[in-house]
């Protein structure tokens, strides 16, 4: 509803105030360009999908591996937790050119950037999930003589799954951003490239097409992960909060 209202106001004001197309194109013009230019940008779009998917996959894997190893080795956790937080303090925009200098223009620096933005929410969410595992359940498992490995796979891992999914959702939206940023630095194709080309030639309508493509991509990643979550985490009472007693 809000969205429809917003777009209508936008469309109306472009008519009423006669805003020049290069400054702010009307939604209808953006829509026309999105349809007419499909041939122009479809390969960019597909390339970005591939890049962000690959980055998200690697980033999630790294995030989970880091979380599990830090969880299993509490001393490592103490040592590395600050490092993980620091890794998020480096502005990607500064880091990206450096990565290009070190690793060239290939896919590697791009994947590193996406991984760097993706792994953090997953690691933090998973670590918190593992740590919040209900003491009662842990207690029961220990009494029953379960090994640490059994405790991890039978209790901590499933317990943390909802948190991990929250982390994944955040990471999924970040991955598209990460992919676009990494494409700005130097790539043959991708929405990032399309965007730079569009803005340097004052094709504001195309910039907006790029923005909407990014949104659509982020939203669909989000939707896919949400539906996965619903399939896997089905032990929760419907319509209730995240806590089970």
């Amino acid at each position, binding site marked *: 509803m809000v969205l429809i209202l917003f777009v209508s106001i936008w469309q109306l004001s472009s008519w009423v105030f006669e805003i020049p197309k290069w400054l702010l194109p009307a939604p209808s013009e953006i829509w026309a360009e999105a349809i007419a230019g499909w041939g122009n940008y479809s390969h960019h779009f597909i390339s970005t999908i591939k890049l962000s998917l690959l980055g998200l996959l690697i980033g999630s894997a790294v995030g989970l591996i880091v979380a599990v190893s830090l969880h299993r080795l509490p001393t490592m956790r103490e040592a590395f937790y600050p490092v993980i937080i620091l890794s998020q303090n480096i502005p990607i925009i500064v880091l990206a050119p450096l990565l290009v200098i070190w690793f060239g223009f290939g896919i590697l620096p791009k994947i590193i950037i996406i991984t760097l933005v993706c792994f953090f929410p997953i690691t933090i969410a998973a670590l918190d999930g593992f740590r919040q595992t209900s003491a009662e359940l842990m207690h029961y498992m*220990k009494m*029953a003589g379960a090994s640490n490995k059994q405790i991890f796979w039978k209790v901590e891992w499933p317990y943390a799954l909802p948190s991990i999914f929250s982390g994944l959702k955040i990471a999924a939206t970040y991955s598209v951003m990460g992919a676009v940023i990494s494409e700005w630095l130097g790539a043959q194709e991708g929405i990032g490239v399309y965007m730079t080309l569009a803005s340097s030639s004052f094709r504001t309508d195309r910039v907006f097409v790029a923005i909407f493509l990014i949104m659509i991509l982020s939203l669909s990643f989000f939707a896919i992960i949400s539906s996965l979550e619903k399939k896997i985490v089905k*032990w929760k009472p419907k319509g209730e909060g995240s806590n089970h007693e």
Partner: protein
Amino acid sequence: MNKLSVKKITKSFEENKVLEELSFHVNEGEFVSILGPSGSGKSTLFHLIGGLYTPDSGDIWMDGERINGQRGSISYTPQSSSLLPWRTVLSNILLGGEIVGQKNEPEALRMIEKAGLKGYEHSYPYELSGGMKQRVAFIRSLLSPQSLICLDEPFSALDEFTRLEMQNWLLSIWEEYKRSILLVTHNIEEALYLSDRIIVLSGKPAKVKKEFIVPFPRPRQESIVLSEEFLQWKKKIYNEL
């Protein structure tokens, strides 16, 4: 033969002595209750038998084997049912066996039916009532390979009606399977109604204050709860607490 025997165990946490020279035993197929005021170290006692802590001194023997600090020797039903919320009733029941690598699904299904939970095999714990959850937790204990079942105030979270129903249910199941049970409770009636023997603990540090052998015949009739004799016993135990 003694199933479990606890010999002069002492346990303190820093300055705080919780158990002092505590000794008792549970025979094969016997139902023993431990009765004590809250905070008398009942949970600590279970943690010691369960092997989560080691006693400062004294020994715990199970089937003639010393099990100080050894986990997995008892099958434990905690106060809250502690069912894994992502597992169905059936796979929760199988958990005890799964940990040691022996699942017995047909037996589990048979037990579920016996416990009056037929039709709920594939339900998740959140769909069950408090009493049903406790039943599931108890069946899980019964199907665990360990032969001594420890119940930690299993009915304390239930309302009075459900509690009575659950006590009868527990008795009927127990009378059939005759497993050794160690029950911790702070409810005198519950201890009297269910057990063969009652061990009364003193306050901190916990020692065995008195031991009662419950004279009521098995199988227990629900009517004894209202009998004069039952009340006399209740008074007697009450005075010890």
